[in-house]
């Protein structure tokens, strides 16, 4: 993948949209057949996805998978009442991959399972819907792309706002020059998260396969509490898990691809709970004459996600206090863009509101796009490479932090840091046997 400026990338990504259609060797799903899928990981998001897919008349959820059997009941009820058929419950996702009748694996696991689960699914001939952030480290993100391309799989990443109609309208507005020359993009994510609360070490509870839960990550003693979210071994971090959506959106809007440098400031400023991953992050990425600023914190109670009453309406949020937004700053105007619906609004150089475009959340269209692409063997809206690039921003920011807030230069061609061996050590993580992402996929 060659390094390229943003305008070149923009043109290139449009060209790639049609490329997949000729290459798949897998049987197409007949128009009368249902797309059969299995869901790996039925936590909150996985259950939501399972329910939505089960409501689609041309989809059948055949499997629900989780290493913790306590999670099954809610997902099972949702799927069965939606599709009128009971899925099989399994604790090992490989049962799904072994079933020749299954077309798709939906991977809604924790970050440290995204890569291996998706790669194995590609190898087994399944298309994949994988939640964001795509990968747990830069190297495995590339391996995921390699696997998808090698096995000619349709892989959609869960950056669902890509499929919202108001995003395209934003792109057209910007491309038409209404904001002038774009030189600054600010990507925000502010939230109020609870602190980590790790319980004492306890015996592994009944019904939980702890070894598999840890999977590629180190096998640690079991403790209750959601302590894993901000540890490098298990997660890309609370900030990355959210801001990847806005980064993806920002890239779409202004047409930027691989960053070539990063500088991160911030750290663990607020929480004193043993976390490793920053709770405050400011990172800059350079694209020639455009700078992208990533600004995030997870201890800001006064800044809220877009209210649910606004997300799918013709109203707009209170922008200064909106948690998940992108600001596009041009020489002639600026745009506030909401990630969870909420639409976008553009202002002229005098600060006057000149255009408002209401938004709708992208989930239904995103899932529909994926299923259609599975049938038609086309590149979906959030192809794996797009997901990889957007996730890359988060990895770069994290690595800049881990090497002591150093400005790093990144070569997209080789996917390495230029002249920085310490940073390069963070490209790939260690894997615990047997859950190893292979060099050769």
């Amino acid at each position, binding site marked *: 993948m060659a390094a390229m400026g943003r305008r070149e990338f923009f043109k290139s990504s449009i060209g790639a949209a049609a490329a997949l259609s000729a290459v798949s060797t897998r049987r197409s799903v007949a128009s009368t057949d249902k797309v059969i899928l299995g869901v790996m990981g039925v936590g*909150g998001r996985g259950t939501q996805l399972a329910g939505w897919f089960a409501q689609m008349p041309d989809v059948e959820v055949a499997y629900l998978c989780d290493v*913790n*059997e*306590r999670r*099954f*009941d*809610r997902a*099972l*009820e*949702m799927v069965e*009442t939606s599709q009128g058929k009971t899925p099989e419950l399994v604790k090992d996702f490989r049962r799904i991959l072994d079933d020749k009748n299954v077309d798709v694996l939906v991977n809604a696991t924790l970050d440290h399972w995204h890569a291996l689960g998706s790669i194995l699914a590609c190898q087994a001939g399944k298309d994949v819907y994988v939640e964001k952030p795509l990968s747990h480290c830069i190297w495995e993100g590339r391996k995921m792309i390699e696997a998808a391309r090698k096995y000619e799989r349709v892989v959609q990443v869960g950056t669902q706002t890509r499929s919202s109609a108001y995003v395209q309208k934003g792109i057209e507005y910007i491309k038409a020059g209404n904001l002038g020359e774009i030189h600054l993009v600010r990507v925000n994510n502010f*939230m*109020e*998260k*609870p602190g980590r*609360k*790790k*319980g004492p070490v*306890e*015996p*592994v*509870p*009944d*019904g*939980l396969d702890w070894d598999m839960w840890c999977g590629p990550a180190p096998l640690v003693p*079991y403790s*209750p*509490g*959601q302590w894993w979210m901000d540890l490098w071994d298990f997660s890309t971090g609370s900030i990355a898990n959210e801001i990847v959506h806005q980064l993806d959106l920002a890239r779409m809007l202004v047409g930027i691809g691989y960053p070539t440098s990063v500088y991160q400031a911030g750290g663990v400023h607020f929480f004193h709970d043993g976390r490793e991953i920053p709770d405050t992050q400011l990172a800059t990425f350079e694209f020639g004459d455009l700078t992208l600023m990533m600004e995030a914190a997870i201890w800001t*109670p006064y*800044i*809220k*996600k*877009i*209210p*649910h*009453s606004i997300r799918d309406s013709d109203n707009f949020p209170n922008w200064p206090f909106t*948690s998940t937004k992108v600001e596009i700053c041009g020489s002639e105007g600026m745009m506030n863009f909401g990630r969870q619906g909420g639409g976008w609004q553009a202002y002229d150089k005098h600060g006057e509101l000149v255009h408002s475009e209401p938004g709708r959340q992208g989930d239904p269209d995103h899932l529909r796009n994926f299923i259609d692409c599975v049938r038609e063997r086309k590149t979906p809206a959030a192809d794996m490479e797009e997901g990889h690039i957007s996730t890359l921003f988060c990895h770069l920011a994290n690595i800049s932090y881990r090497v002591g807030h150093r400005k790093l230069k990144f070569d997209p061609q080789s996917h390495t840091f230029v002249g920085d061996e310490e940073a390069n050590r963070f490209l790939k993580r260690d894997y615990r046997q047997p859950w190893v992402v292979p060099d050769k996929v």
Partner: protein
Amino acid sequence: MRRSLFFILGILTVYEISYAQWLGISGVTASLEKTELGGPRIVIEYDLHEDEITPESPAYVFVRFSKDSGATWSLIPHNYLSGQGSPIVESGGHKGILWWGIEETGFPSIDQIQFQVRGIRMVRIPAGEFTMKSTPGGGYDSKRIGNRVSSLPGFYMAKCETAVSMYADYLNEVGGNGAGWNSQMSDTLRCGIEQTGSSPAYSYKVMPGRENYPVTFVSWYDAVAFLDWCGLHLPSEAQWEKAYRGGRFLEGDSLKQQPNPLPERKFPWGNESPGEGEVFRCNGRGEEDGFAHTAPVESFPEYSSTYGICDLAGNVAEWTIDWYTTTYHVDLDGIRMVRGGSWRSFPSGLDAISGATSLPLRESGIMGFRGAFEF
């Protein structure tokens, strides 16, 4: 079918209500008394026809009144009432309630007041310590951490999950425009309330045989609204867990010398798995326990908690009042905690520790609720 007597002052009206889980209350009368110094008061009397009302398993009695011939109804707040007839009633028989301050309620005429007196069977949980969030063999608590030993003041909890019949009765008062109703409630395997008519005059009836089943497809907001209607509230997680396991001392403290033999039990009945030895102790996943979907409340009476509360494990997962997360989910508040597992849960999901999180708007065939009360 039980009958309840409504009394418009001076006029007796017999009113049949099709509810099953309300306690047997009849002979409701009301009269106005003027006191020499205290102003007027209404004396409400009724007969409570239940044999097993005790201080440990009392009735919770609440009164709703109407001053516009039944068009609208309101709950009489407990702090306006006195007498042994409400809110906690510790024995059956003839009871009296005194309603003070009626001049402030603006009745056009005292003769136009109608009353509804209802009762719910409760269980008393004494104040004292209990073991929270830990079981032998491993407790799974993915969302919360707490001290192993906690303490609560005394409170009361409904013996049973809120039943279809009770909720239908509630809907017939408040649900004329559809509020509180979910079309999936007509599913006879999971709920069993039918809606007829049209807005603003919908009416609701219990489908045959469904009276004693737990109501489902209720959001957290629906549950809170129903319990507000009764003058109750959702239990906190701590209250729920103490009800499930029992206190360290069943009668509150060590002085009464009733130690809980299993203060860290995994299940309300002890540590045996729900289906151990082919004996089924609650309604969980599968049909071997006799129920493919929800079961009538109190279907496993011999496996209740130490206090005699039924179905804390299985049947329907129960909303609590507690939040899991912060308020950054604006206008939907935070995610709520749900406890107890349901008729779909594996045994591991039915234990003292397991909990689920849910957005408060979720309405599901596996979720219900019960009420709690404290002075």
